[in-house]
Every structure is written in structure tokens, then in C-alpha cells.
């Protein structure tokens, strides 16, 4: 049972992390290739605090705050650079984070931080807590998506210049998306640190950033449900099938390639396509039946 609980906890944290990126990239259209840096910021903040005997729950807002502050500055960058340049900038932040952490002895340097205290719950209740946070943020994302803010995000994602020319303060919305998306990644990081009880710089490198981006793209950029399902599936796959873990990057890249080739809108697009085909087939059959009768 412990193994299943561990799997489900990993899954919930991955969903929360993927939804955090989906908020920035999926809803607001701002690419982030260094989102693992925000996961790491939250993880290190929370781990350092619990090691200094602060209660785990108290560390969560601080994890969100430190990641959110970093996200705010990246959000400011997004006002100056766009598209490919933003991708490169965020990628740079990811590398910078790993580079800085490696050099800091108080953060454990290359070795990382081990012996992170228990969050104070049993494994089962920790899973429930992670699931609760992931569901809460999924609900929040859905609400935002349906709200007026979600529509503005979508218009920024479609055409930033036109959105600006309509009198909408694009900068505020972009910064808001970055702050929320990175704060939640920070919370996911805090959960991650207390789930594994060990963190190191390599856990928050480029591979992690690309993996989470793959979850969002394979799921279907912007779709809360599809991204959650894909994150759940892709996060536990390497744990269930060991051979996948050995070739994780290769596997994710192949999935990305095939998805881009056959369904650029991700699983969400694929499901919609199947539904549409089925509906048109049914309509055709109904018409034929009517003709026959």
C-alpha cells in the first residue's frame, strides 16, 4: 500500500506543477522553459525552513512567496521579450538557478539537502493534502479560464498587440499569470521536498522543465483536465515501468514529436477530433436511415 501511496503522491505533485505551468503557458500563452527553477526555489525555501524547525504548513506560504517574487521578475522580463526570446530567457533562469544552487554551501551545494523532516502527517494524509491542493488549483484554473480574466489571457495568447490596442493593460495580466504560476510551482516544490525528503540541484534542471512542458503540450495547452490527466499518467509511468525511466527524455521527446505531428492540440484536440468524427458519422447514419424509411 505504501508504494501506491507514494505513486499517487508523486502524481498529485506533478499535476500541481503541470497546472502551474499551464497557468502561464496554457492560459496566458507565455512560454516558460525554466519552470523547474520555481519548483526548486519553493523546495529549497521549504526544506531550509523545516530544517530550522519551522512547521511544514508555515513554510508553504514562504515557498509560494519566494517563487512568486522570482516569477514577478521573470514576468517583468516577459514585458520586454516575447516568444523565442522569452523561451531563451526562462531557460537561462533555469540554468542560473542550478548554477547558483550548486555553488552555495548553505544550500548543500552539489550534494543537496538530505534529511528533510517529515511534514508532520502520515503518508496517507500527506497524499490527501497534495490531492487537495492539486484539486483546489485545478478548480481555481477552471474558474479563471471561464472568467473575464481567462478571456483576456486567451486574447493575449492569441494576439498581444491587438489586445493592447484595445486598451487592455497586457503587462498587468502577464505579470499576474507569472506570479500565480510560479507561486504554485513553489508550493509544488515544497510538497516535493517533503515527499522525497531529499533535494539536489539536479532535481530542478532543464530536463525537469522540459518534462513538465511536455506534460502541458501533450495534454493540450490550456486545458486543465487534459493537462491533469497527462501529468498524472506521465509522472507515474517511469515509476511503473522502469525501462521508461531509463529512457525518460527519449520517451517524452518521442511522445512530443508524435503529438506535434498527428495532433498539435494535444490529447484534448485528439479527443475533440474523435468526438466530432463520431458525431458526423452518427448524423450520416441517421440521414441514411431517414432516407431509407
Amino acid at each position, binding site marked *: 500500500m505504501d508504494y501506491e501511496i507514494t505513486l499517487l503522491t508523486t502524481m498529485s505533485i506533478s499535476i500541481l506543477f503541470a497546472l502551474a505551468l499551464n497557468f502561464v503557458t496554457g492560459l496566458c500563452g507565455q512560454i516558460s522553459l525554466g519552470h523547474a527553477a520555481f519548483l526548486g526555489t519553493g523546495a529549497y525555501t521549504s526544506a531550509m525552513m523545516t530544517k530550522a524547525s519551522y512547521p511544514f504548513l508555515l513554510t508553504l506560504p514562504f515557498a509560494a512567496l519566494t517563487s512568486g517574487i522570482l516569477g514577478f521578475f521573470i514576468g517583468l522580463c516577459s514585458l520586454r521579450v516575447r516568444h523565442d526570446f522569452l523561451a531563451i530567457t526562462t531557460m537561462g533562469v533555469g540554468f542560473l538557478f542550478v548554477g547558483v544552487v550548486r555553488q552555495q554551501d548553505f544550500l548543500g551545494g552539489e550534494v543537496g539537502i538530505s534529511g528533510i523532516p517529515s511534514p508532520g502527517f502520515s503518508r496517507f494524509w500527506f497524499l490527501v493534502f497534495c490531492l487537495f491542493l492539486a484539486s483546489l488549483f485545478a478548480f481555481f484554473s477552471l474558474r479563471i479560464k471561464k472568467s473575464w480574466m481567462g478571456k483576456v489571457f*486567451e486574447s493575449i495568447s492569441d494576439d498581444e498587440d491587438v489586445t493592447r490596442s*484595445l486598451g487592455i493593460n497586457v503587462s498587468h495580466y502577464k505579470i499576474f499569470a507569472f506570479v500565480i504560476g510560479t507561486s504554485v510551482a513553489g508550493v509544488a516544490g515544497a510538497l516535493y521536498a517533503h515527499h522525497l525528503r531529499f533535494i539536489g540541484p539536479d532535481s530542478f534542471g532543464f530536463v525537469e522543465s522540459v518534462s513538465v512542458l511536455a506534460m502541458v503540450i501533450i495534454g493540450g495547452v490550456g486545458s486543465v483536465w487534459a493537462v491533469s490527466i497527462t501529468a498524472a499518467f506521465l509522472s507515474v509511468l517511469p515509476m511503473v515501468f522502469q525501462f521508461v525511466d531509463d529512457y525518460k527524455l527519449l520517451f517524452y521527446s518521442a511522445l512530443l514529436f508524435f503529438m506535434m505531428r498527428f495532433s498539435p492540440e494535444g490529447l484534448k484536440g485528439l479527443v475533440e477530433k474523435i468526438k466530432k468524427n463520431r458525431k458526423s458519422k452518427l448524423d450520416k447514419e441517421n440521414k441514411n436511415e431517414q432516407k431509407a424509411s
Partner: protein
Amino acid sequence: MLKVLNLNCGYGESSVLRGLSFELKEGEVLSLIGPNGAGKTSGLLCLMGLVDCHGGDIFFKDKNITSLPSDKRILEGLAVVPEGRRIFPNLTVFENLMAGGHILTSEECEKGILKSYEYFPILKERKNQKAGLLSGGEQQMLAVSRGLMVNPKVLVVDEISLGLMPKMVDECYKVLKKLKDEGLSIILVEQNTEKALEFGDKIIMLEAGQIVWEGDSVTATKENIVQKIFT
């Protein structure tokens, strides 16, 4: 209403428009014409604050708005209908109009939407349809309506006839004429010179980023100025 003095604009270091000056009064239409790459669209985008201004001044109701960001220019009373429609394809017609009225109160927004439906009744029928599924002409109507949502004093319209069938072009111009009669000032960029001359009170002809001729439409037609310059 709008006064532009020696406007220079461009992208980064390169300048694409030099020395554009004109004055636009209430209810007047200015047509900017010229070949591709003349700087017409860049000039319009610069007026809206979407392209870097390298020099010159823009006065709107005697207030210098040259350094205002684009979202603040909307508040002053400028609005744009961009080239190629550029509606938000994933939003419905209604949501697109709402986006246009983002700065208004919900009451004003509702009024604006009803007015748009008056100008273009087809939009009312399509209000819950995704904008990306509309025909080219309907998308252009939506783009015009979205620009009008803020009840602007000056409407900047870029290539309204681009890719539309003649009937749709006439439909759009009919609404522009109505708006002009209601006192709206319009700056029009058009490749369809016949339409531009017919509709414009003032004509500015641009070539390679500079004014090569300016005057009124009557003189332009009488002197066959377009043919002289384009050949």
C-alpha cells in the same frame, strides 16, 4: 482633433516613415495610400503606440500623446481596426466585442454591443459562434465593431477591403459612411485607391516612407494623381 507633426517611426534602428504631418478635424476622413512598403501601416501603428516613434509629435485634442502607451491612447479616444482583422478566433463574437469594451462599465459595454448589432445585424445572429468560424466579411465587421466599442473619436482603419468580396467591402464602407456622418473622424489605409479617393476628404500619398503628394480627393481625382505617381 488630431494633429501629427513630422512623425518618424520604425522598428529598432531602422526608420520606415519620415516626416508624416497632417491635421484631422471632427467628422473628417483621411486616406493614406501608397504601394506596399510605403509605411502606411507602420504610421498607423505608431499613432496607436504599437510601433516605436523615432521623432515628431502627436497631439490629440491639444494634448501631446506621443509618449502615451497604447492602452492609454484608447482612453483618450483613439481606436484601431487592424489589418487582416486579427479578431480573437477562440473567443465568441460576443466575447470579442466584450474585449473591445474592456475599459467600459458593464452598462456602457452592453450599449456598445447593441449598437454594434445595429450596424451589423449578422453579428447578433452569430453572437455565440466562435469568431474563427466566421466568414472573412463577418470577421471584418466584427473587427470594426470591436474597434467601435470604446466609442472613439478617431477610428484608425487598416486595409478594410483586404481579401473581401466587393459586396462585403461595400457593406463595410456603408457603415463607415454612417459613422462619418455621425461625426467620427477616420484615418483609412487602403490599397484600393478608388475606394480611398471616393471616401477620403483628405488624401496623403506615401512612397518609400515619405509623403509624395497630399491634397483633397477632388484634386487627386481631377489631376489623375494616382496614375501619375504609380506609373
